[in-house]
C-alpha cells in the first residue's frame, strides 16, 4: 500500500511542481516568479524526501536539509536585489 501511496504523493508533488513552473512562467511580476521559485525549492524537498522513502534510504536527507536552508538564502538575496539593488551593501 505504501508504495501506491508514495506514487500518488509523487504525482501530487509533480503536479505541484508543474503548477509552480506555470506561475514561474506566467509571472506576471518578478516577485510572483520568485515566490514560485521559492515554492519550487520547498516542493523539491518533498520530492527528495519521497525518493528517500521509496528507495528506503536516508542518504538524501542532507540534500533536503540543505535545500531548506539554502533556498531561503537565494530567495532573500533576490528580494534584497529587488529592494536595494546591491545585495551586500
Amino acid at each position: 500500500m505504501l508504495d501506491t501511496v508514495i506514487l500518488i504523493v509523487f504525482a501530487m508533488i509533480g503536479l505541484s511542481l508543474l503548477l509552480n513552473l506555470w506561475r514561474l512562467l506566467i509571472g506576471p511580476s518578478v516577485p510572483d516568479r520568485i515566490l514560485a521559485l521559492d515554492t519550487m525549492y520547498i516542493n523539491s524537498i518533498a520530492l527528495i524526501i519521497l525518493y528517500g522513502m521509496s528507495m528506503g534510504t536516508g542518504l538524501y536527507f542532507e540534500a533536503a536539509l540543505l535545500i531548506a536552508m539554502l533556498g531561503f538564502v537565494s530567495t532573500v538575496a533576490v528580494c534584497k536585489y529587488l529592494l536595494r539593488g546591491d545585495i551586500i551593501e
Partner: protein
Amino acid sequence: MTEWIISILLLIGGSFVLVGSIGLVKMPDFFMRLHGPTKATTLGMASLLTAAMVFFSTAQSGLSVKEILISIFLLLTAPISGYMLIKSAIHHKLDSIERTQGKDNIEDDV
C-alpha cells in the same frame, strides 16, 4: 498500523503541498498568492517529514528524528521569505485586486 499512519501523513502532506501550489496559481493577486506557499506548503512539508520520520524510524533500526530539523528550518524561514517577498511586491507597487481593503495602510518605501 505504522504503514497506515505513514500513508495518511503522506497523503495529508501531499495534499497540503498541492493546495499551496494551487493557491499560487489560482489566486488573483500577488498578495493573495503568497498565502498558499507560506502556510499550506509549510504545513504540508511538516506532515510529509513526519511521515518520513515515522517511516525511517520503523524501516531502519532505531529512531530517526532528524527530519524534524527540516520542519524547524522551514518554520523559521518561510515567514521571512514571505516577508521579503511581500516587501518587494510593495516596493514594486504590485496591484492588489480592487476589493482589497486598507490599501492606504501601505506606506511608500522610497
